[in-house]
């Protein structure tokens, strides 16, 4: 769906990272973890295109005026990296944006008896938190979070409040263990057994390492990819990634916006990404 959305709140949650709450029609409650929204941050031609953001949370509240109807919302957790995100970070309560979404596929977590292992970095935590909130009621769950420095490690408190075991690694050791999150993940994978599924979202090098690890351990793995996007609905073919194709010479390009952003890691031609 496409809708005008009012900013409810917009706060810096960690240096350079913001959480914005946007009003939405009731149907937003049906958004699946892993889906995203394309936001037009302001009118005019600068920036021209919408910006894609994973859905971090959905919910509802009752505004504080008499007879107020229930108001639905969704949250985005975003990092200020350029023009669009800095315009977004300057928005206030009662400003408006235009939203297209929820879009794309969501994660397909493990079935009964399977443990879900979430692995993320940076704003990749956004869809994972949303996923964890849904899963925690029914399935065993663990979260592995990586980041360059302490400031890049988001949502630890949120995950812990959900009562989920959370493992953290930072490149500089300022939080959790020092090193890559995949090292911590590997230790965990080889220590413990059982049926499990890895669900990952974060920077591409991290996803690549996670996918390789899961291949080695024979574990089903889903990753959520990023790509520059124009339409968000599978029409422009601008956002493709390389999937395994029909023939070796002709890669089969897959739309990240529509066939993804969540892919089974085995679908992707990792060596060419």
């Amino acid at each position: 769906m496409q809708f005008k959305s009012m900013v409810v709140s917009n706060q810096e949650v960690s240096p350079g990272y913001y959480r914005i709450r946007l009003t939405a029609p009731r149907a937003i409650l049906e958004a699946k973890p892993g889906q995203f929204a394309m936001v037009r941050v302001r009118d005019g031609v600068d920036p021209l295109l919408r910006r894609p953001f994973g859905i971090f949370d959905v919910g509802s509240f009752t505004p504080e005026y008499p007879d107020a109807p229930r108001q639905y919302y969704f949250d985005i957790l975003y990092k200020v990296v350029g023009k669009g995100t800095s315009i977004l970070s300057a928005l206030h309560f009662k400003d408006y944006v235009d939203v297209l979404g929820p879009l794309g596929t969501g994660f397909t977590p493990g079935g009964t008896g399977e443990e879900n292992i979430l692995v993320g970095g940076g704003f990749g935590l956004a869809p994972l938190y949303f996923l964890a909130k849904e899963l925690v009621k029914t399935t065993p769950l663990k979260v592995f979070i990586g980041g360059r420095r302490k400031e890049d490690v988001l949502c630890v408190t949120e995950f812990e409040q959900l009562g989920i075991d959370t493992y953290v690694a930072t490149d500089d050791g300022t939080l959790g263990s020092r090193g890559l999150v995949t090292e911590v993940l590997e230790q965990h994978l080889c220590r413990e057994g059982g049926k499990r599924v890895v669900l990952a979202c974060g920077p591409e090098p991290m996803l690549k390492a996670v996918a390789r690890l899961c291949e080695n351990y024979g574990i089903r793995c889903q990753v959520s990819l990023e790509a520059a996007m124009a339409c968000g609905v599978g029409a422009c073919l601008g956002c493709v990634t390389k999937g395994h194709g029909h023939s070796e010479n002709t890669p089969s390009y897959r739309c990240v916006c529509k066939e993804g952003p969540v892919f089974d890691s085995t679908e992707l031609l990792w060596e060419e990404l």
Partner: protein
Amino acid sequence: MRKLDLSVHVAGIPLRNPVMTASGTFGYGEEFAAYVDLEKIGAIVTKGLSLKAKAGNPMPRIVETPGGMLNAIGLQNVGIETFIREKVPFLRKIATPVIVNFFGNTVEEYAALAERLDAIPEVAGIEVNISCPNVKHGGIVFGTDPKSAYSVVKAVRETTIKPLIVKLSPNVTDIVEMACACAEADADALSLINTITGMAIDLKTRRPALANVTGGLSGPAIKPVALRMVWQVSRAVKLPIIGIGGITTATDVLEFLLAGATAVQVGTANFMSPAASQQIVEDLEKYLRDNGIKDVKELIGALRV
């Protein structure tokens, strides 16, 4: 009050209003069905087809630029047979004319595609994209050489009685010369402009922002160039013109009509808002009503110079 008349005819195709969607920016129509009432727009122009499916260019394929965007999709498409099998059934269900955009690497390929499309009743018209290199003639682009353009249009003309629209490239010294060549080859209408070749660089990596190095510039940034070319061609050639380039509002549409276009196509604006085309139709209707204009056709070529 008499009903407003928004209808126009282009190349013999009756359109309920002059607002079509541009090839490559609206998929095969169905991608937008959740956001636009497809029966409200004038026509759907589908993604450029080739004989065989085409994988397209490596990524990254798009990048935003000031007031516009570059794309180097590389004409990825499902190929004509899959189109007929998998996409036409959806399009059959809606009462909006479907114009099929296509391209080839040789004159023969163009003709073969046209012949195949001629047999499909759901195809209201065909739009020939000549902005492609002619592989038989050392890669010279059909769309920048009047002789090549003539020969490809002529060959297509001979294989089909469908309304034949030729889509012109703006990357030429003299757009009128190109338009004349297509008119001579008996095109029924001209659509312009396709994208302007451009380039962007990612300073961080020191690489081109597109894997293909160059790409096609589209969006509001190119509107002044498109408007100029439509005006030039409309004064020189008798054929109806479909104006394309940076159209995002009803005001833009009206400007193209004044400049001499009979209809328009909305491209990049579909990305800014998937409902853009329908919104433009509604605003166009409102403009006519507010200004006491009964028939949109009164505006075609009505520029006061």
